[in-house]
């Protein structure tokens, strides 16, 4: 049965989500020239809905420029939304201001992509990790010192590093410092903005394992932003696929990897290299060609139709909405795939 997302929401209202994003939009004004009458907007995030359950990891995947990082920054209140609601434990974060917002920030933290720019080069490791604790007046003096050293133990940093500066560390160690800073306030939600994409492959798994360990230890909820599916497979419970500012598919990790419903997801999966040539499924491999269109001037209808191998006339004119095609499996496509192998569902 095809149901509208809103209907599903009313049905499952009993379930309390940690975070719920409703109709979130972020348009950047990119009008050039002073006297142009028509304003031009870059639709970085265009009307997205999703929720995150307590204790789970939601992966958000998409190409560069699809709006996944913007979504993270909007939830963090580092950017102001254009429209929509960001409801965290029943409170709309985007309506909070000043001191109330500052206090709330303790509950949502962020791990950044580039460990070389996310640590202040002028601050010692100790001060970097102590900053959140000091800012929210959690600890002082000896107690602060103990807490910082404990955090360093937890993320696997030697305590003797406390007096050093960030430039003395490798990317992986820097990311550990960033993680220690993010968990210092025992937040409920951590937004991880491509936390391993700047690291060596060998270090990536160490950091991912550390993050999984911390999730169990501190009952953390993660939003894990990545640009490829392999990175989120390891850690996510559910995965949202974004394309040009829209969520095109959102479901559990198993369903997404076994039976993607959206052609774009299928394309992303096909793009994952398979080391063993005999396991490669050449016949059913779809290749997404071309570049992503500009979010300042998105295609009409379904935004993916310019690159979709199965596009029909309807796709060019009518925009599909995100609907629950199968239980707990939402997709925004007029002709979702069956079994993820290019066979269209007859309608």
């Amino acid at each position: 049965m095809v149901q509208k997302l809103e209907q599903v929401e009313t049905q499952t209202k009993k379930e309390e989500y940690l975070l719920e994003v409703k109709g979130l939009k972020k348009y950047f004004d990119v009008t050039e020239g002073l006297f142009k009458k028509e304003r031009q907007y870059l639709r970085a995030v265009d009307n997205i809905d999703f929720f995150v359950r307590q204790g789970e990891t939601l992966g958000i995947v998409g190409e560069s420029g699809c709006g996944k990082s913007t979504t993270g920054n909007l939830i963090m209140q580092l950017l102001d939304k254009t429209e929509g609601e960001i409801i965290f434990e029943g409170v709309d974060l985007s309506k909070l201001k000043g001191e109330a917002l500052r206090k709330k920030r303790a509950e949502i933290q962020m791990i950044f992509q580039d460990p070389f720019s996310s640590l202040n080069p002028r601050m010692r490791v100790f001060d970097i990790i102590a900053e959140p604790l000091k800012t929210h007046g959690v600890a002082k003096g000896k107690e602060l010192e103990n807490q910082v050293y404990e955090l360093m133990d937890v993320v696997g940093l030697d305590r003797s590093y406390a007096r050093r500066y960030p430039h003395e560390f490798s990317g992986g160690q820097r990311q550990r410092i960033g993680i220690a800073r993010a968990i210092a306030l025992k937040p409920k939600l951590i937004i991880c903005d491509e936390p391993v994409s700047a690291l060596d492959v060998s270090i990536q798994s160490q950091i991912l394992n550390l993050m999984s360990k911390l999730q169990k230890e501190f009952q953390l909820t993660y939003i894990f932003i990545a640009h490829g599916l392999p990175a989120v497979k390891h850690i996510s419970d559910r995965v949202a696929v974004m394309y040009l500012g829209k969520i095109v598919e959102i479901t559990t990790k198993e369903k997404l990897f076994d039976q993607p419903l959206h052609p774009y997801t299928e394309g992303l999966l096909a793009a994952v290299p398979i080391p063993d040539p005999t396991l490669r499924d050449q016949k059913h491999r779809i290749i997404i060609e071309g570049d992503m269109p500009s979010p300042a001037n998105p295609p009409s209808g379904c935004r993916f139709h310019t690159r979709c191998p199965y596009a029909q006339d309807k796709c060019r004119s009518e925009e599909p909405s995100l609907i629950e095609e199968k239980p707990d499996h939402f997709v925004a496509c007029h002709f979702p795939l069956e079994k993820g192998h290019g066979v269209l569902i007859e309608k």
Partner: protein
Amino acid sequence: MSVNTETQNQNQVVSSVEKKQTTNGFVRWMRLLLKSKTGTFGLIIVLAVILVAIFAKYLAPYDPNMINPAAMLKPPFWLEGGSMEHILGTDNLGRDILSRIIYGSQVSLAVGLAAVALAGVIGVFVGLVAGYYGGFIDNVLMRLVDSFLAIPTILFALVILSIFGPSVTTLIVVLGITNWVQYARLVRGEVLSIKEREFVKAAKSIGVRDNKIILKHLLPNVISPFIVISTLSVATTIILEASLSFLGLGIQPPTISWGGILSDGRDYIATSWWLATFPGLAITITVLAIIFLGDWLRDVLDPRSAK
């Protein structure tokens, strides 16, 4: 996890490491200083000039304003007619050049340092605020900067000095007010690039207040280009003060500044070159030393250069 037992062990390790690190700060400075020959030179000269300024009373062989008609226009000691009585010779009124240079260092240094400090405080503050907040505040402040830039420094200084009368204080204020704009622009530019870095985003997402972000995250990261520019600027301010004194609107006699001595000597440059050359040399060497010192300070202030 056996964190507790480990904690005690590691605490001991840490405290010994800390001790090492505190001495390390000074040791690191000294090591960096000795590594840089120009830095060593700069520091020694600047310290020497400062000491000379402080102890001018004891170092100067004569009263700098003592007129001695018996010893007019005496050349330095190594020239014919010169003597060890007046090592660098005397001027047209028979005043000892060395004594005058020693006393002149007081005013020249004080004006240079104080004017730059004043300009630096205003400029850095304006630059930080404009760069961090952006938008309307930035626009207003930067248009103010532009309008200041449109005023020629010397002309502005001349007008103010002729209205309020030349004194050390007015000179410092005038030079400070005409110089802050360059710091404001420099700092604003740096802030614009630094505030896009993720550590500023991280501080915001932690909930660090704006004033703390500005003071703890932005200021330390703009300070090294500022130090370099401001040392250079101490140098140009000393020169500017000399120019104003040269034009007769700087330090008024009997107060002595290097620019003043230079200006007094210009009429005799063809016959008695030492009148203008030695104060000129004093300015050149001091300015050069300050620039070297500034370069070295930039290295010391950047933790990344400590290898």
